[in-house]
């Protein structure tokens, strides 16, 4: 069978060229009809490609939005002949709902480790066939040890990217208010006297107890992974004290709000804040955003590649995961998205600005202070959610 995946791409390439000539005003008259013909031709090629999918090898991937360099997928298809059907989500909850309902049709999905653990318990995933994953030898044991807390023996998943939950801030405002160039620590959020100074400037927190409570516990010197009601009450009291200074609890709005200079501080995911930093720099409106891993310690999170139990293309899924563990490939992904990956061998292929940025790859000393947290049992989760509603709404 000829590879129609590539043939279709050629068709689209031709269309793009026609578009280019169409932009020249002289060609205007006849151009439109040519364009229509080209588009139809491309559509027909795409249609015939659909018909041949049954014989073609396919892998259906469901990953976070803006989380890969597209050329990696094209290279994978060129190398293996497996077509990648790539679909994206923007929250763990959406992914989880699809997985729990069953029959999602996806072969590779990318939940965060915290969600992965409870999904494994629900029987969502199948064990990886490690004999088909020779590139596992490239993985970084420091990260593997941590992900094993969620998935003992790393039986079900391998790390794609990882990061931290820390503080994104407006550099100039921070200096203006605190009078220092030093990177902020948890005091700016959890110390009521200091947080009060940022009230008018604006503080956003992630709207999920499992993202914020562990950091509050760490600030109090308690075990960040504590599920004890007494500890959680203490963290709740702390958060209620700073509640009046927090403008909003929301898990994505802070990216734009930081980039536009609408707020000064946000507790958010490292990668999101790098995105805000880049957007602010592109806008050239005088806003500078930076990210700090607070000195008192921060939560680490991991996005994991896993195969659903009912995946239709198991062999292709393994090939895809194995490909993503190639050092050059995953390094290319990290260089594109500015996240750290769990692949030791990949580090030699990383751009300097990624590998040497301690906000992405923290120093060994800082790594010691990063903590992981484990999921709550359903009954504990209910208590936690209720405490959170009390913090957020006052009810």
């Amino acid at each position, binding site marked *: 069978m000829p590879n129609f995946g590539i043939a279709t791409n050629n068709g689209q390439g031709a269309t793009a060229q026609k578009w280019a000539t169409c932009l020249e005003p002289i060609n205007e008259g006849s151009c439109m009809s040519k364009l229509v013909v080209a588009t139809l031709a491309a559509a027909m090629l795409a249609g015939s490609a659909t018909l041949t999918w049954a014989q073609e090898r396919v892998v259906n991937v469901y990953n976070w939005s803006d989380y890969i360099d597209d050329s990696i997928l094209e290279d994978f298809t060129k190398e293996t002949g497996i077509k990648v059907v790539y679909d994206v989500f923007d929250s763990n909850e959406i992914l989880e709902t699809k*997985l729990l309902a*069953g029959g999602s049709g996806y072969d590779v999905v990318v939940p965060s480790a915290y969600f992965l653990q409870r999904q494994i318990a*629900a029987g969502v995933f199948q064990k990886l066939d490690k004999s088909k994953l020779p590139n596992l030898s490239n993985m970084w044991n420091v990260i593997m040890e941590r992900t094993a807390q969620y998935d003992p023996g790393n039986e079900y998943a391998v790390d794609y990217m990882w990061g931290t939950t820390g503080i994104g801030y407006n550099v100039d405002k921070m200096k203006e208010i605190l009078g220092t160039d030093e990177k902020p620590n948890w005091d700016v959020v959890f110390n009521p006297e200091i947080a009060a100074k940022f009230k008018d400037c604006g503080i956003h927190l992630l709207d999920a107890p499992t993202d914020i409570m562990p950091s509050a516990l760490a600030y109090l010197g308690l075990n960040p992974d504590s599920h004890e009601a007494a500890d959680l009450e203490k963290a709740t009291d702390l958060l209620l004290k700073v509640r009046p200074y927090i*403008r*909003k609890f929301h898990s994505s709005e802070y990216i734009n709000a930081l980039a536009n200079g609408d707020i000064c501080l946000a507790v958010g995911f490292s990668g999101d804040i790098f995105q805000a930093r880049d957007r602010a720099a592109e806008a050239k409106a005088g806003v500078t955003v930076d990210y700090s891993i607070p000195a008192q310690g921060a939560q680490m999170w991991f996005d994991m590649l896993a195969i659903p139990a009912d995946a239709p293309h198991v062999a292709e899924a393994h090939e895809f995961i194995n490909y993503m563990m190639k050092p050059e490939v995953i390094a290319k992904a990290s260089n594109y998205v500015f996240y750290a990956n769990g692949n030791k061998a990949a580090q030699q292929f990383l751009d300097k600005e990624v590998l040497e940025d301690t906000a992405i790859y923290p120093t060994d000393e800082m790594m010691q202070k990063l903590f992981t947290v484990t999921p709550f049992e*359903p009954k504990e989760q209910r208590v936690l959610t209720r405490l959170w509603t009390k913090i*957020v*709404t006052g*009810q």
Partner: protein
Amino acid sequence: MAKLASALVNRLVIIVPYAWLLFFFLIPFFIVFRISLSQTTVAMPPYTPVFDLAGGLAGILEKAREFSVDNYVWLTEDALYFNAYVSSLIIAAISTFLTLLIGYPIAYGMAKAPRAIRPTLLMLVILPFWTSFLIRVYAWIAILKPEGLLNQFLMTIGIIDQPLIILNTNSAIYIGIVYSYLPFMVLPIYSALEKMDHSLIEAAQDLGCTQVSAFWRVTFPLSLPGVVAGCLLVFIPAVGEFVIPDLLGGSETLMIGKTLWNEFNANRDWPVSSAVATVLLLILVIPIVYFQNVQAKADGERG
């Protein structure tokens, strides 16, 4: 023969809306209701009991004994749910009232406009639908934020010297809902007013009504069906609104949509969230059915 055929066609025409209701309302509702009687568990799907048709009727009946109303009892034990329902109803009622206040004059003006420009006006009302709802709500963030367009404008013309804090408050939610649902209020009122016979107003004025009293004693009562339809079209979706309070509202705004989201996604408790949804539906359906009955009776008496 022709009579029989047309009777058959009539039947078929009636079947379409009933089939619609069956497939897109009743069956989904029963699925939700059935989950609300289940218990949450760590599995796929995350509730029990799950029916296996292979077990036959006896097997299904056996499993059905596991159903319980525990989730509904749970909703009464924490004031959170009651407060969330009440707060959603209040926000929806205020928004509906504001939408009516703004929508009625617009519809009135449209119905009184020269016949030739009415289609244009109608299109202008529908025009915002050509842009995605989400993008329009996002646009309001840019308008309402402290350094946003509205504050900049008001400060430039010197009405205020400190930016108004509107974004992330309930005022922003009202603005968002009124803006988004205005066409649903304007269109039914316009259609009621447009059909009205203008000679009735002339008759009222001949009989001594002033313009104002003619409006309140003739025009407004005749437009009531449009007003009621418009209010329901705004009120019902506003109660369960999730996107507008999430993007424009503050975190302290308690609405049932968010409570349901928490139950479903944070607690992964599909049964309790189904119970929340079922109760919400009952809260909305009972007054509507009651209202329809009253109206049908009134129509019957008049006829």
